[in-house]
């Protein structure tokens, strides 16, 4: 069987204890559901001497709603719980769709929201066994100094491949993290991501940061959301590209809109320039104009399967279809 590096496993029971261990043990890593980390360890992408298992932390696996209507999602919440949540289906159906689209039924029971947000970036030249990577001399992200995707010694374009992230960004979600010394930090999810896909550089938070919650602001009246995932087969497949859409509709008029492209670059990419269209009704022409903006904003790279030009074309199609779906509802459930 595939070999993981040798490590010790620690099972803290409180977030504070977990963060303290993480800070104490150099090179250690958190493991939640393990569905991203264990395959990566088997590929020898990391060789941590210690793993800090988050499975026994209590109280972080709940989906709660504040009196103001905003949602507090614990980092240990299994993806299956997100996908099956009545509360979320009623308020942010796009998030339910995103969670339900992840991998297969077993992964969704094991995988957690925290792990999904912190998912490592993915690339054809990275998510491979050690012998495979040795054959190409490593890459910029791991054991090498060259990005074979874009032919550069500077930038790593491994794709942010989480399905919930683009949706949560479209929903203006904020991340709550615990840092060593008891410091708590809250930041807009979008700000977590850097332009560099390398493991250590991909996030703006320090590596010891433990994600405790994701906060989704109150969706409010007229709020609608949907998630459109492009993949080659219908299950157990990461996105080749995705479009997350969230809007507020007042009658015909669209008073708020976010369109976020996922599985393209190390960062989720909000489609810019939409404010010009805010306040308009979502007519076919307006939908087309927004789809055109998504197309223009799209820069898929050949780091995932699926031709970049096709994935870019799909940005337009899926944005248009997503908007049509938002327009016609029935949402929220």
């Amino acid at each position, binding site marked *: *069987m*595939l*070999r*993981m*590096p*040798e*490590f*010790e*496993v620690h*099972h803290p029971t409180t977030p504070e204890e977990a963060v303290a261990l993480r800070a104490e043990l150099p090179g250690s890593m958190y*493991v939640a*559901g*393990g*569905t991203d980390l*264990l*395959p990566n360890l*088997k*590929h020898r992408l990391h060789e941590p001497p210690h*793993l800090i*298992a988050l*499975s026994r932390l209590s109280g972080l696996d709940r989906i709660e709603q504040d009196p103001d209507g905003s949602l507090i999602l614990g980092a240990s919440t299994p993806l*299956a719980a997100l996908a099956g949540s009545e509360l979320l289906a009623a308020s942010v159906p796009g998030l339910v769709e995103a969670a339900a689209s992840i*991998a*297969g*039924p*077993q*992964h969704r*029971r*094991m995988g957690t929201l925290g792990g999904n947000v912190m998912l490592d970036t993915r690339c*054809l030249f990275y998510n491979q*066994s050690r*012998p*495979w990577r*040795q*054959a*190409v*001399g490593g890459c910029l992200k791991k054991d*090498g100094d*060259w990005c*074979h995707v*874009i*032919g550069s010694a500077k930038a790593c374009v491994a794709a942010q491949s989480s399905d919930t992230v683009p949706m949560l960004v479209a929903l203006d979600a904020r991340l709550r993290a615990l840092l060593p010394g008891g410091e708590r930090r809250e930041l807009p999810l979008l700000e977590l991501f850097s332009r560099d896909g390398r493991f250590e550089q991909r996030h703006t938070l320090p590596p010891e940061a433990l994600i405790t919650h994701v906060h989704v602001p109150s969706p409010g009246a007229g709020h609608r959301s949907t998630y459109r995932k*492009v993949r*080659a*087969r*219908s*299950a*157990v*497949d*990461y996105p080749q590209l995705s479009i997350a859409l969230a809007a507020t509709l007042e009658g015909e008029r669209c008073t708020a809109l976010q369109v976020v492209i996922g599985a393209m670059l190390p960062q989720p990419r909000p489609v810019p320039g939409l404010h010009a269209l805010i306040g308009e009704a979502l007519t076919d022409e307006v939908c087309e104009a927004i789809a055109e903006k998504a197309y223009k904003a799209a820069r898929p790279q050949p780091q995932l*399967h*699926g*031709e970049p030009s*096709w994935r870019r*074309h*799909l940005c337009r*199609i899926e944005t248009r279809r997503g908007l049509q779906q938002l327009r016609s509802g029935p949402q929220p459930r």
Partner: protein
Amino acid sequence: MKQVYPLTINGDVHEVAAPPHWSLLEVLRYGLGLTGTKQGCDKGDCGACTVLRDGEPILACCVLAISQQGHELITIEGLADADGPSPVQRAFDACGALQCGFCQPGMILSAHALLARDPDPEEATIVEALSGNLCRCTGYTKIVEAVRAARDLREAKVFADRADPGPFPRHLPVAHGPPAEGFQVIGSRGRKADAIAKATGAAQYTDDLALPRMAHGSILRSPYAHARIRSIDTSAAEAMPGVFAVVIGADMPTPYCVIPWTADEHALAVDKVRYIGDAVAAVAAVDEDTAEAAVQRIVVDYEVLQPVITPAEALAEGAPLVHDHDWKGRARRDNVCKTVELSFGEVDQALADAAAVVEGDWSYSGSTHAPIEPHCAIATWDPDGRLTLYSATQVMHYLHRELARVLGLPPDRIRVIQPTLGGAFGGKSEPFDLEFCAALLSKRAGRPVKILYTREEVFYAHRGRHPMDFHLRIAADAEGHITAVDNDIVLDGGAYHSFGLVTTYYAGQLLPGPLRFGSYRFRSQRVYTNKPCCGPKRGHGSVQPRFPLETALDELAQQLHLDPIEIRRRNAMADGERTINGQHVPSCGILQCLDAVEAASGWRERFGQLPFGRGLGIATSMYISGTAYPIYPNEMPQSGVTVLADRSGRLTVFSGTNDIGQGSDAVLAYIIAEETGALPEHIRVVSGDTELTPVDLGAYSSRVTYMAGLAAQEAGRALRGLLIEVVAETLQCDPAALIVVPGRYVLASDPDTGVEVADALRMAEAKLGTPVSRSGGYRTRELGGDYRGGTIGASPAYSATAHVAEVTVDPDTGVVRIEHVWAAHDCGRAINPTLVEGQIEGSVYMGLSEALYEDMAYHEGMEARRRAPGEHDRTRGLHLGPNLLDYRIATSLDTPPITASLVESIDPGGPYGAKEAGEGPLHPAIPAIANAIHDAVGIRLRTMPFTPQRVLAALRQAEGA
């Protein structure tokens, strides 16, 4: 360092002692011997390792065992209770949902969890719940049926009588039809002998075995697509504590090949490496961690050479040579492995006279078998120098021969055992490096050695479908009769020969039929490239050319304003006809197949009339029932079967066949039951062991039911004759007055007077002495065309198949969805209809999966401006995804309903009229889908797979035109 901790599994508390970095899967299988939980990828892609944690399915390979304390774990072993197997397990058995069974423990646990939370699931819910469990055998059809049956069975409490989990209990209400008219057993939907063992996790696959003191092996593979080995330094590896032995190519210098006279491959590379993943050295060590660490310490000095990745590169003037010498030791001048040119009739004339001609270039992409069980071998030596090799092989006999050759050991000192096999499809039909390495390492280490391929190594071992490029011309007269087919074929063979010369012939020789050709010419050329070696995959060599033929035929029909089914009818061969290349086809049910799919699909009302984006397509095929000539020329029978009677009332059937999940053991049992009157539950089949069984050449070319079936029939008949005589003597009647009814020999005139079969066995032993036994054999008749190569593709019988596929095409995204496939297959006689349907459903599945999703794609190199600094472009020849996540095989959600119908043409030569069912039904899937895409959106795709990108590009081109 091991740590000790408790785990609660199946209600038992185990004190586990394992290193903390072991996954739950490793602890279950290797630590606790709970081997019912399977491993197919070890990284979360396949679902074979599914277990229940607090009632919910999870993947044991993706969690740490040490973190599972405090949970209730259930493995497949824990699903049965004191009453016997659970309803789900029994339903899987009863419905014929188990073929190789390797995916099934995981599948059954997913199904069990579903039924626990939703006792009455909709079909869509079932399909979704199983979408994380890949099955490569069944097309999910009978699995979904079984989940529904489990629900029904559980509610009806029909398992009240669960005390009897025997192999063939009669009380199972599902899937038991009556036998065919005039038979006792043949034609009934009996259960498979090994099904309940597979469903309960009791069946032992190779990696489930562990021998005392067993060491683990690991293989070092080439990081270069093409390089000369200057030297190998193994000293650092050898010096590591826990390393028992290291071997390199020089230790096994004799080349081998499944075809003995084209040996161009070594157990480990001796002079050159020829693809990324080619084996270079192997280590045996105390555990897997040490073996892998030792492999990393072997230092190989390579002189890197320019690789050739595509056939075009390989055929270019002055191209680097993949092999410097051919198998006879002569210097090579080019990379051509084999060329075949044959011509029948006046092709040029017919083309000139034709009313319609279609001509073009087609390209078939490579695909691989992807059985869920990775290859595994365990070698052990007796103190007196005899080798026993357990291996996940489908051709035990050929492996036996090549082991003797490479190891320089007399064959009588070698025993090859094939444990239960987790799928093969042609991917385990020749010897592989791990078998030789395990044998030699075990000898050197003085202890048993196991080598288990990683999933990535399975991709490198490959021997899958050859990519082929075609230039095809097809012509017809005004009535639509095919007057000429002219095909120019280039096969991308990869680095070694494998079955190469057979494949090169098959690509041409198997095309004429079940449709009649007025004239035929082909030129077929197999080329070496620096990639993993191609070989036989289900429908060896002949699946690919059906794609250009059957799609071009559709175009021809369009030109001639003929219905696509009608044009096929006009060309349909009849029973007893010869193909243009001289193959005799004793029975051909293609017309009935066409009728069946036409009616079932509503073709007449719907073809050409569905809304834009939805369409129907048809295609046909023919396939061999074994090859008349074995891989090495000899005068001996291809198959032998011995039946041995025991005074307990049991009949034991000895056969060298390899049951690879298709159910050949069960077929042999049915035949012996039919012939002798013994009830199937009193028959045991011993197969897959070269020391215990008469030779059978193995599970390839769809030969087993036909050839071993005839041998079994002969053996069974002889035994019956003997028993009837003994009974007649006892009853003092004429033997001719006796007839066989299930379990008894009785007087035809007075069926109440008779003798139980078991008593007859004892009478025979008393009269004739021990043992009471009879044998049968199968030899092929002289067959084939009277020209060089005319015997290749000659078979005693040919199956026929027709498919109608219904697809939807999204014209905005290019995404194709298959909505339904109707497949009618002429199997001659269905010895067990459930098994035949299973073969059809699985074939359709495998075909549609390769049509839409699968591609053995390799990097062809970087544009100069993107290339990493350095002398060589090291991306060339890299496999683009040697795992079950990037190499996408269809999940349950991608698989449409498949309607299988059986056509029984009763072949004059086959056992009870039977012929093949395992491979033919795959062929039409690809062209039927291509033709359906045309009906849906008006484009003709000539390159596979039919990805959204290709569909969209073709649509744009059509719009532009």
